[in-house]
Protein backbone atom coordinates (compact mmCIF):
# COMPACT_ATOMS: atom_id res chain seq x y z
CA UNK A 1 0.00 0.00 0.00
CA UNK A 2 2.97 2.30 0.65
CA UNK A 3 4.05 1.82 -2.95
CA UNK A 4 0.53 2.57 -4.16
CA UNK A 5 0.48 5.86 -2.24
CA UNK A 6 4.00 6.68 -3.45
CA UNK A 7 2.92 5.98 -7.04
CA UNK A 8 -0.10 8.28 -6.68
CA UNK A 9 2.12 11.01 -5.19
CA UNK A 10 4.76 10.68 -7.93
CA UNK A 11 2.08 10.74 -10.65
CA UNK A 12 0.47 13.81 -9.09
CA UNK A 13 3.83 15.61 -8.85
CA UNK A 14 4.66 14.76 -12.47
CA UNK A 15 1.22 15.85 -13.69
CA UNK A 16 1.51 19.14 -11.79
CA UNK A 17 5.04 19.70 -13.10
CA UNK A 18 3.96 19.08 -16.70
CA UNK A 19 0.96 21.42 -16.35
CA UNK A 20 3.17 24.14 -14.85
CA UNK A 21 5.66 23.52 -17.68
CA UNK A 22 2.97 23.98 -20.34
CA UNK A 23 1.67 27.18 -18.71
CA UNK A 24 5.24 28.50 -18.41
CA UNK A 25 5.96 27.66 -22.05
CA UNK A 26 2.80 29.50 -23.13
CA UNK A 27 3.90 32.57 -21.15
CA UNK A 28 7.38 32.47 -22.68
CA UNK A 29 6.04 32.07 -26.22
CA UNK A 30 3.54 34.93 -25.75
CA UNK A 31 6.07 37.26 -24.10
CA UNK A 32 8.93 36.68 -26.54
CA UNK A 33 6.57 36.76 -29.55
CA UNK A 34 5.10 40.05 -28.30
CA UNK A 35 8.54 41.66 -28.03
CA UNK A 36 9.60 40.32 -31.43
CA UNK A 37 6.41 41.68 -33.07
CA UNK A 38 7.11 45.08 -31.51
CA UNK A 39 10.68 44.82 -32.83
CA UNK A 40 9.33 44.14 -36.33
CA UNK A 41 7.04 47.17 -36.05
CA UNK A 42 9.93 49.36 -34.92
CA UNK A 43 11.99 48.10 -37.83
CA UNK A 44 9.12 48.85 -40.23
CA UNK A 45 8.97 52.41 -38.82
CA UNK A 46 12.79 52.70 -39.12
CA UNK A 47 12.84 53.52 -35.37
CA UNK A 48 16.46 52.58 -34.71
CA UNK A 49 16.57 53.35 -30.96
CA UNK A 50 13.39 51.48 -30.19
CA UNK A 51 14.50 48.51 -32.31
CA UNK A 52 17.89 48.36 -30.60
CA UNK A 53 16.24 48.56 -27.19
CA UNK A 54 13.76 45.78 -28.06
CA UNK A 55 16.53 43.59 -29.50
CA UNK A 56 18.38 43.91 -26.19
CA UNK A 57 15.24 43.13 -24.19
CA UNK A 58 14.39 40.04 -26.24
CA UNK A 59 17.97 38.78 -25.86
CA UNK A 60 17.98 39.27 -22.07
CA UNK A 61 14.48 37.81 -21.64
CA UNK A 62 15.33 34.77 -23.73
CA UNK A 63 18.56 34.05 -21.84
CA UNK A 64 16.62 34.00 -18.57
CA UNK A 65 13.73 31.85 -19.80
CA UNK A 66 15.87 29.46 -21.82
CA UNK A 67 17.52 28.11 -18.67
CA UNK A 68 14.19 26.69 -17.51
CA UNK A 69 12.73 25.75 -20.89
CA UNK A 70 15.80 23.65 -21.75
CA UNK A 71 14.64 21.02 -19.23
CA UNK A 72 11.51 20.21 -21.18
CA UNK A 73 11.91 21.28 -24.81
CA UNK A 74 13.84 19.83 -27.74
CA UNK A 75 17.40 21.17 -27.50
CA UNK A 76 17.77 21.61 -31.27
CA UNK A 77 14.93 24.13 -31.48
CA UNK A 78 16.17 25.94 -28.39
CA UNK A 79 19.68 26.18 -29.86
CA UNK A 80 18.33 27.55 -33.13
CA UNK A 81 16.24 30.11 -31.28
CA UNK A 82 19.19 31.18 -29.11
CA UNK A 83 21.41 31.50 -32.17
CA UNK A 84 18.83 33.59 -34.08
CA UNK A 85 17.97 35.86 -31.13
CA UNK A 86 21.66 36.51 -30.40
CA UNK A 87 22.07 37.88 -33.95
CA UNK A 88 19.22 40.43 -33.70
CA UNK A 89 21.24 43.17 -32.00
CA UNK A 90 23.97 43.11 -34.64
CA UNK A 91 21.35 43.22 -37.43
CA UNK A 92 19.80 46.33 -35.83
CA UNK A 93 23.17 48.04 -35.35
CA UNK A 94 24.14 47.29 -38.96
CA UNK A 95 20.76 48.55 -40.27
CA UNK A 96 20.02 45.26 -42.03
CA UNK A 97 16.26 45.78 -41.81
CA UNK A 98 15.19 43.14 -44.39
CA UNK A 99 17.38 40.54 -42.69
CA UNK A 100 16.10 41.63 -39.30
CA UNK A 101 12.51 41.16 -40.48
CA UNK A 102 13.22 37.69 -41.84
CA UNK A 103 15.03 36.67 -38.61
CA UNK A 104 12.13 37.96 -36.52
CA UNK A 105 9.71 35.93 -38.64
CA UNK A 106 11.93 32.91 -38.16
CA UNK A 107 11.84 33.40 -34.39
CA UNK A 108 8.06 33.67 -34.44
CA UNK A 109 7.80 30.52 -36.55
CA UNK A 110 10.07 28.52 -34.23
CA UNK A 111 8.23 29.76 -31.14
CA UNK A 112 4.90 28.87 -32.72
CA UNK A 113 6.25 25.46 -33.68
CA UNK A 114 7.53 24.82 -30.14
CA UNK A 115 4.14 25.75 -28.71
CA UNK A 116 2.22 23.75 -31.31
CA UNK A 117 4.36 20.66 -30.69
CA UNK A 118 4.11 20.87 -26.89
CA UNK A 119 0.46 21.97 -26.67
CA UNK A 120 -1.66 19.25 -25.05
CA UNK A 121 -4.10 18.71 -27.90
CA UNK A 122 -5.76 15.60 -29.27
CA UNK A 123 -3.88 16.12 -32.54
CA UNK A 124 -0.49 16.25 -30.77
CA UNK A 125 -1.23 13.20 -28.63
CA UNK A 126 -2.04 11.19 -31.74
Amino acid at each position, binding site marked *: *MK*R*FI*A*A*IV*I*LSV*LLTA*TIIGIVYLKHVVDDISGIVVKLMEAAADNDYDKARNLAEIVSIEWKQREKIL*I*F*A*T*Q*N*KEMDELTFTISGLESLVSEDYWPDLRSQCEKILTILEHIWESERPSFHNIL
Partner: protein
Amino acid sequence: MFLVFFRVIILYGLTIFCLRFMGKRQLGELQPTEFVITIMISNIATMTIENTSVPLASGLVPILVLICLEVIISVAAIKNRKVRKLVSGNPLIVIRNGVLDQNTLQELRFSIDDLMEALRGQNIFDIRDVEFAVVETNGIVNIFKKAEKQGVTPEMLQLQTMPCGPQVVLVSDGELIEDGLDTSGMTRDWFDRTLAKEQRSVRDIFIMTCNNAGDYHIIPKQ
Protein backbone atom coordinates in the same frame (compact mmCIF):
# COMPACT_ATOMS: atom_id res chain seq x y z
CA MET B 1 30.44 11.79 -24.67
CA PHE B 2 30.69 13.43 -21.24
CA LEU B 3 26.93 14.06 -21.28
CA VAL B 4 26.23 10.47 -22.22
CA PHE B 5 28.35 9.29 -19.29
CA PHE B 6 26.25 11.20 -16.75
CA ARG B 7 23.00 10.37 -18.50
CA VAL B 8 23.83 6.67 -18.23
CA ILE B 9 24.53 7.03 -14.50
CA ILE B 10 21.25 8.89 -13.90
CA LEU B 11 19.14 6.52 -15.99
CA TYR B 12 20.83 3.46 -14.51
CA GLY B 13 20.00 4.74 -11.04
CA LEU B 14 16.45 5.49 -12.08
CA THR B 15 15.96 2.06 -13.68
CA ILE B 16 17.25 0.30 -10.56
CA PHE B 17 14.94 2.45 -8.43
CA CYS B 18 12.03 1.59 -10.73
CA LEU B 19 12.66 -2.16 -10.53
CA ARG B 20 12.91 -1.95 -6.74
CA PHE B 21 9.81 0.23 -6.64
CA MET B 22 7.85 -2.34 -8.66
CA GLY B 23 8.82 -4.91 -6.06
CA LYS B 24 9.92 -8.52 -6.24
CA ARG B 25 7.06 -9.46 -8.57
CA GLN B 26 8.97 -7.81 -11.39
CA LEU B 27 12.09 -9.93 -10.91
CA GLY B 28 10.39 -13.30 -11.27
CA GLU B 29 8.23 -14.52 -14.13
CA LEU B 30 6.73 -11.56 -15.93
CA GLN B 31 3.01 -10.94 -16.19
CA PRO B 32 1.89 -9.39 -19.52
CA THR B 33 1.76 -5.85 -18.07
CA GLU B 34 5.19 -6.24 -16.46
CA PHE B 35 6.63 -7.55 -19.71
CA VAL B 36 5.30 -4.52 -21.60
CA ILE B 37 6.61 -2.11 -18.96
CA THR B 38 10.06 -3.74 -18.98
CA ILE B 39 10.39 -3.45 -22.77
CA MET B 40 9.14 0.14 -22.81
CA ILE B 41 11.44 1.27 -20.01
CA SER B 42 14.51 -0.28 -21.64
CA ASN B 43 13.64 1.41 -24.96
CA ILE B 44 12.98 4.82 -23.42
CA ALA B 45 16.17 4.67 -21.35
CA THR B 46 18.23 3.68 -24.41
CA MET B 47 16.79 6.46 -26.58
CA THR B 48 17.35 9.07 -23.88
CA ILE B 49 20.95 7.97 -23.36
CA GLU B 50 21.75 7.95 -27.08
CA ASN B 51 20.00 11.15 -28.13
CA THR B 52 21.54 14.03 -26.19
CA SER B 53 19.42 16.59 -28.06
CA VAL B 54 16.40 15.30 -26.18
CA PRO B 55 16.05 16.70 -22.64
CA LEU B 56 16.66 14.17 -19.88
CA ALA B 57 13.17 14.93 -18.57
CA SER B 58 11.73 13.45 -21.77
CA GLY B 59 13.12 10.11 -20.62
CA LEU B 60 12.62 10.43 -16.86
CA VAL B 61 8.96 11.46 -16.98
CA PRO B 62 7.67 8.57 -19.13
CA ILE B 63 9.69 6.00 -17.15
CA LEU B 64 8.31 7.26 -13.85
CA VAL B 65 4.76 7.45 -15.25
CA LEU B 66 5.00 3.87 -16.54
CA ILE B 67 6.26 2.60 -13.18
CA CYS B 68 3.55 4.44 -11.26
CA LEU B 69 0.86 3.10 -13.60
CA GLU B 70 2.23 -0.41 -13.19
CA VAL B 71 2.14 -0.14 -9.39
CA ILE B 72 -1.39 1.31 -9.44
CA ILE B 73 -2.66 -1.34 -11.86
CA SER B 74 -1.03 -4.15 -9.88
CA VAL B 75 -2.68 -2.92 -6.67
CA ALA B 76 -6.01 -2.59 -8.50
CA ALA B 77 -5.56 -6.13 -9.85
CA ILE B 78 -5.00 -7.46 -6.32
CA LYS B 79 -8.11 -5.70 -5.02
CA ASN B 80 -10.39 -6.40 -7.97
CA ARG B 81 -10.76 -9.70 -9.80
CA LYS B 82 -12.16 -8.07 -12.94
CA VAL B 83 -9.10 -5.83 -13.26
CA ARG B 84 -6.87 -8.85 -12.67
CA LYS B 85 -8.64 -10.75 -15.42
CA LEU B 86 -8.43 -7.76 -17.75
CA VAL B 87 -4.69 -7.14 -17.37
CA SER B 88 -3.38 -10.66 -16.77
CA GLY B 89 -6.03 -12.98 -18.18
CA ASN B 90 -7.01 -16.30 -16.63
CA PRO B 91 -5.02 -19.51 -16.18
CA LEU B 92 -6.38 -22.15 -18.56
CA ILE B 93 -6.48 -25.93 -18.20
CA VAL B 94 -5.07 -27.68 -21.26
CA ILE B 95 -4.96 -31.26 -19.93
CA ARG B 96 -7.70 -32.64 -17.73
CA ASN B 97 -7.48 -36.17 -16.39
CA GLY B 98 -4.95 -37.14 -19.05
CA VAL B 99 -7.10 -35.77 -21.89
CA LEU B 100 -5.86 -32.91 -24.03
CA ASP B 101 -8.24 -29.96 -24.40
CA GLN B 102 -7.61 -29.12 -28.05
CA ASN B 103 -9.97 -26.12 -28.10
CA THR B 104 -8.13 -24.42 -25.23
CA LEU B 105 -4.83 -25.26 -26.88
CA GLN B 106 -6.01 -23.56 -30.09
CA GLU B 107 -7.37 -20.62 -28.13
CA LEU B 108 -3.94 -20.17 -26.53
CA ARG B 109 -2.24 -20.68 -29.92
CA PHE B 110 -0.08 -23.29 -28.19
CA SER B 111 1.30 -25.97 -30.51
CA ILE B 112 1.45 -29.55 -29.31
CA ASP B 113 5.25 -29.24 -29.55
CA ASP B 114 5.18 -26.32 -27.10
CA LEU B 115 3.08 -28.33 -24.69
CA MET B 116 5.20 -31.48 -24.98
CA GLU B 117 8.34 -29.40 -24.41
CA ALA B 118 6.79 -27.94 -21.24
CA LEU B 119 5.83 -31.45 -20.06
CA ARG B 120 9.29 -32.84 -20.77
CA GLY B 121 10.73 -29.92 -18.81
CA GLN B 122 8.90 -31.35 -15.80
CA ASN B 123 10.06 -34.89 -16.52
CA ILE B 124 6.76 -36.05 -18.00
CA PHE B 125 6.85 -37.87 -21.34
CA ASP B 126 3.28 -39.13 -21.53
CA ILE B 127 0.19 -36.88 -21.52
CA ARG B 128 -1.80 -39.69 -19.84
CA ASP B 129 0.35 -39.25 -16.69
CA VAL B 130 -1.05 -35.76 -16.17
CA GLU B 131 -4.10 -35.09 -14.01
CA PHE B 132 -4.12 -31.36 -14.74
CA ALA B 133 -1.93 -29.10 -16.82
CA VAL B 134 -2.56 -25.40 -16.42
CA VAL B 135 -1.16 -22.64 -18.60
CA GLU B 136 -0.64 -19.77 -16.17
CA THR B 137 -1.13 -16.12 -17.07
CA ASN B 138 2.63 -15.67 -17.51
CA GLY B 139 2.78 -18.56 -20.01
CA ILE B 140 4.29 -21.12 -17.63
CA VAL B 141 2.75 -24.61 -17.77
CA ASN B 142 2.17 -26.10 -14.33
CA ILE B 143 1.42 -29.78 -14.01
CA PHE B 144 -0.27 -31.94 -11.43
CA LYS B 145 0.52 -35.62 -11.97
CA LYS B 146 -2.01 -38.39 -11.54
CA ALA B 147 -1.93 -39.89 -8.04
CA GLU B 148 -0.48 -43.20 -9.25
CA LYS B 149 2.35 -41.38 -11.05
CA GLN B 150 3.42 -39.21 -8.13
CA GLY B 151 6.54 -40.00 -6.12
CA VAL B 152 6.37 -41.72 -2.77
CA THR B 153 6.48 -39.33 0.16
CA PRO B 154 7.42 -40.05 3.81
CA GLU B 155 3.79 -39.30 4.68
CA MET B 156 2.59 -42.14 2.42
CA LEU B 157 5.00 -44.52 4.13
CA GLN B 158 4.06 -43.10 7.54
CA LEU B 159 7.68 -42.30 8.30
CA GLN B 160 8.70 -39.88 11.05
CA THR B 161 10.61 -36.87 9.70
CA MET B 162 12.63 -34.22 11.51
CA PRO B 163 11.82 -30.65 10.57
CA CYS B 164 14.84 -28.98 9.03
CA GLY B 165 14.97 -25.71 7.18
CA PRO B 166 16.94 -24.95 4.05
CA GLN B 167 20.71 -24.59 4.08
CA VAL B 168 21.61 -20.96 4.72
CA VAL B 169 24.97 -19.40 3.83
CA LEU B 170 26.90 -18.51 7.01
CA VAL B 171 30.30 -17.76 5.49
CA SER B 172 30.86 -16.46 2.00
CA ASP B 173 34.39 -16.05 0.65
CA GLY B 174 35.98 -15.77 4.11
CA GLU B 175 33.34 -13.40 5.48
CA LEU B 176 30.79 -14.20 8.17
CA ILE B 177 27.22 -13.31 7.23
CA GLU B 178 25.42 -12.35 10.44
CA ASP B 179 21.99 -12.49 8.78
CA GLY B 180 22.68 -16.15 7.94
CA LEU B 181 23.10 -16.95 11.65
CA ASP B 182 19.77 -15.27 12.43
CA THR B 183 17.96 -17.06 9.57
CA SER B 184 19.29 -20.49 10.52
CA GLY B 185 18.58 -19.86 14.21
CA MET B 186 22.18 -20.57 15.18
CA THR B 187 24.20 -18.52 17.65
CA ARG B 188 27.60 -16.94 17.30
CA ASP B 189 28.77 -19.18 20.11
CA TRP B 190 27.70 -22.30 18.17
CA PHE B 191 29.48 -20.94 15.09
CA ASP B 192 32.74 -20.33 16.99
CA ARG B 193 32.60 -23.77 18.59
CA THR B 194 31.95 -25.42 15.22
CA LEU B 195 34.93 -23.68 13.63
CA ALA B 196 37.11 -24.64 16.59
CA LYS B 197 35.98 -28.25 16.24
CA GLU B 198 36.78 -28.19 12.51
CA GLN B 199 40.08 -26.41 13.27
CA ARG B 200 39.37 -23.67 10.74
CA SER B 201 39.22 -19.91 10.76
CA VAL B 202 36.57 -17.85 8.91
CA ARG B 203 39.19 -16.54 6.47
CA ASP B 204 40.02 -20.10 5.30
CA ILE B 205 36.42 -20.92 4.36
CA PHE B 206 35.09 -20.36 0.87
CA ILE B 207 31.51 -21.21 1.76
CA MET B 208 29.79 -22.58 4.85
CA THR B 209 26.10 -23.43 4.95
CA CYS B 210 23.90 -24.61 7.78
CA ASN B 211 20.24 -25.41 8.45
CA ASN B 212 18.27 -24.87 11.65
CA ALA B 213 18.94 -28.49 12.71
CA GLY B 214 22.63 -27.65 13.00
CA ASP B 215 23.60 -29.69 9.94
CA TYR B 216 26.46 -27.75 8.35
CA HIS B 217 28.70 -28.06 5.32
CA ILE B 218 32.08 -26.37 4.84
CA ILE B 219 33.95 -25.85 1.58
CA PRO B 220 37.46 -24.54 2.32
CA LYS B 221 39.28 -22.04 0.13
CA GLN B 222 41.67 -23.57 -2.39
